[in-house]
């Protein structure tokens, strides 16, 4: 690291690129006042040369969007690809589409001119974030030491509390590790955020090996044992497992998506509005369930592609399986949500209005019908589920019900919301979605409410890995990044992805009693009692996870189009 870690971010080495000499001078002055080391450049091409030549000599790049010799976005891409430095874009034009474009091309921030000094003061966070990410990647399990170092390095630095927070989370985690480890039915899952475990490449590899040996359906405890890694708990494994499954599912979904590409397009447009519809239908739905879940009848098609860079496919809409129109509560939505829309996040529902979210009542369960998104397969898939999930889905603790990660069900993997037809999820509302400033509240709610269900992928193989490294065994997608999110690591702006890896295992969802005739359970009258999902604390996807997921997804895929504006929402949803 070039900048002195002990006095970070002082001495941060910034390269400023702007064709306007006046701005160049001003920015230079501002950055100098922040005690950064500044290099200015008036041409994009020259900037690239400088960077190529002295790649390791810069920590961050700030560039204007409009430049005569090269499009700022192009420069941004180059830098991201070749040097992997965080890049901040600037422009006098703050139009959403432009900003979006910046984000899509990988900008970790987008500043509007006239830029103020206070905005520049904080640019170090992008560098820090990236480093954190890298540290985690490399060091994985043992990264806490490095993080400690970084943390101490920052101690005198009180700009933003985020880093401190992150570190203290980690520290706390370490301390609590032993305690948690022994605590199988830890109520931790139900508690608010726990310190995160960093899933390094190494750690993940062990995880995958273990999973491959014994399969998903054995459960996190066995996986944990097999892994034989000290310091991680069953909850850690469980949550990681879930993500993994989702990830795999998403990959699967991805493949299918490509086929359904065109169809998807149509639906995606509808998606958003559908969400809204869904919401209202949720709200309007009389509670069918004893617990008073209003939306029970929503069929949720879970798709795991949250992590997928193909965010565009995910819409935060209830993926209503085309096949199952009986759900009338959301029929309208369902119809539009046609399965053809291979939105990975089919399961993501914008439960904006879901009371579930609001109530934070653990006992409230949202019954969601999960259906795989796959265009065309939904009903079938769905049918299969009931057989599986029954008695198996102990969402959090035990993934016994989860099928092996072989994507045996084409559509299933990654079914976030697996069809246990009625997944009663008591949205554990610990998750505080409000932290997600980037995510619409609806999504957050959605996520929250879905989270229990998410984990309960009855037969889905896909544990969506939101931010863990997933070595896809069944797909050719290789994971190289530790932090798990191959998708994530591309952008600089990924927040502490792992921050929120709370052992979400406390999802008390016990699907054991899920009725068997679930096929189409639109959540209609699934008696909650039957479901036995009581304390659902499904995943608490930490806010940051959500964010990270969102972000990483954005950057990951160039195909990401402007429609993605909705996607983040979806993403957040899943990871609530």
């Amino acid at each position, binding site marked *: 690291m070039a900048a002195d870690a002990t006095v970070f971010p002082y001495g941060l080495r910034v390269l400023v690129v702007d*064709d*306007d*000499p*006046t*701005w160049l*001078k*001003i920015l230079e*002055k*501002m950055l100098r*006042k922040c005690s950064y080391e500044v290099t200015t450049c008036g041409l994009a091409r020259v900037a690239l040369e400088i960077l190529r030549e002295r790649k390791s000599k810069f920590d961050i790049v700030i560039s*204007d969007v*409009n430049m*005569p010799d090269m499009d700022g976005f192009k420069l941004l891409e180059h830098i991201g690809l070749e040097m992997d430095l965080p890049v901040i874009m600037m*422009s*006098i*034009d703050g139009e959403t589409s432009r900003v979006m474009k910046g984000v899509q091309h990988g900008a970790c921030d987008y500043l509007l*001119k*006239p830029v*103020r*000094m206070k905005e520049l003061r904080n640019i170090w966070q992008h560098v820090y974030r990236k480093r954190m990410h890298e540290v985690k990647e490399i060091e994985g399990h043992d990264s806490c030491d490095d993080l400690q170092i970084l943390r101490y390095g920052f101690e005198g630095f009180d700009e933003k509390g985020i880093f401190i927070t992150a570190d203290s989370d980690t520290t706390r985690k370490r301390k609590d590790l032993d305690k948690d480890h022994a605590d199988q039915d830890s109520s931790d899952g139900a508690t608010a955020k726990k310190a995160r475990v960093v899933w390094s490449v190494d750690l993940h590899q062990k995880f995958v090996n273990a999973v491959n040996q014994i399969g998903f359906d054995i459960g996190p405890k066995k996986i944990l044992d097999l892994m034989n890694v000290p310091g991680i708990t069953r909850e850690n494994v469980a949550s990681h497992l879930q993500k993994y499954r989702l990830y795999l599912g998403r990959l699967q979904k991805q493949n299918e998506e490509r086929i359904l590409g065109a169809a998807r397009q149509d639906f995606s447009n509808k998606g958003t509005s559908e969400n809204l519809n869904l919401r209202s239908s949720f709200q309007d739905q009389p509670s069918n369930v004893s617990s008073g879940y209003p939306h029970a009848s929503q069929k949720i098609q879970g798709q795991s592609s949250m992590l997928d860079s193909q965010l565009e496919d995910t819409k935060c809409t209830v993926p209503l399986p085309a096949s199952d129109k009986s759900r009338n509560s959301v029929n309208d939505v369902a119809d539009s949500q046609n399965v053809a829309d291979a939105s990975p996040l089919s399961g993501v529902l914008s439960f904006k209005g879901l009371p579930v979210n609001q109530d934070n009542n653990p006992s409230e369960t949202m019954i969601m019908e999960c259906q795989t998104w796959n265009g065309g397969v939904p009903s079938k898939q769905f049918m299969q589920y009931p057989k599986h999930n029954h008695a198996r889905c102990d969402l959090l603790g035990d993934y016994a019900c989860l099928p092996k990660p072989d994507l045996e069900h084409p559509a299933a993997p990654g079914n976030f919301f697996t069809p246990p037809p009625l997944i009663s999820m008591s949205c554990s509302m610990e998750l505080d979605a409000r932290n997600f400033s980037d995510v619409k509240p609806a999504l957050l709610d959605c996520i929250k409410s879905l989270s229990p269900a998410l984990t309960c992928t009855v037969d889905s193989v896909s544990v969506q890995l939101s931010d863990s490294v997933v070595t896809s065994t069944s797909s050719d997608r290789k994971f190289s990044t530790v932090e798990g999110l191959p998708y994530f690591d591309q952008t600089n702006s990924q927040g502490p992805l792992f921050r929120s890896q709370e052992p979400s295992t406390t999802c008390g969802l016990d699907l054991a009693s899920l009725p068997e005739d679930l096929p189409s359970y639109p959540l209609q009258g699934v008696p909650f009692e039957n479901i036995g999902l009581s304390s659902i604390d499904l995943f608490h996807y930490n806010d940051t996870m959500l964010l990270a997921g969102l972000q990483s997804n954005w950057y990951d895929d160039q195909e990401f189009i402007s429609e993605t504006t909705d996607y983040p929402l979806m993403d957040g949803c899943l990871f609530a």
Partner: protein
Amino acid sequence: MDYSNLRRQIIFMKKSFFDQGYLDEQFNQLEELQDESSPNFVEEVVALFLKDSPRLLINIEQAIEKYPQDFYRLDSLVHQLKGSASSIGAVRMKNECSVLKAHGNDKNLEGCRRSLQKMKREHATLKQKLESYFQLLRQVGPRNSAVNSRK
């Protein structure tokens, strides 16, 4: 030399810039950046702007006259000028850029021309005002830079 008088003049002049809408908050920001290591920062920045902006104006004029159909090019050039004007807080010019852009979007060449003429006038006025201002400042000397950096 009557510094107090000069200082009053300076203060008054600066105030008028704001009141009459020639400059905005950005100008204050520049003054805040001025410090011991760059005691004439604001003047330097303004000088830079005044030196560079004619080029942009010429480019725009050229675009209108030589490439009257190329509104995309025109838009890009106006965008540059707008960005530049925003650097010192030249709000009138900035606004005029928006007007010019709008004309360009409407493919209203005549409107663009008129707007450009107005822009040139604004530029000339601003230049003259700022140059007088800094001249005054120089007269009172660095000791009185408090006038500038006072927030």
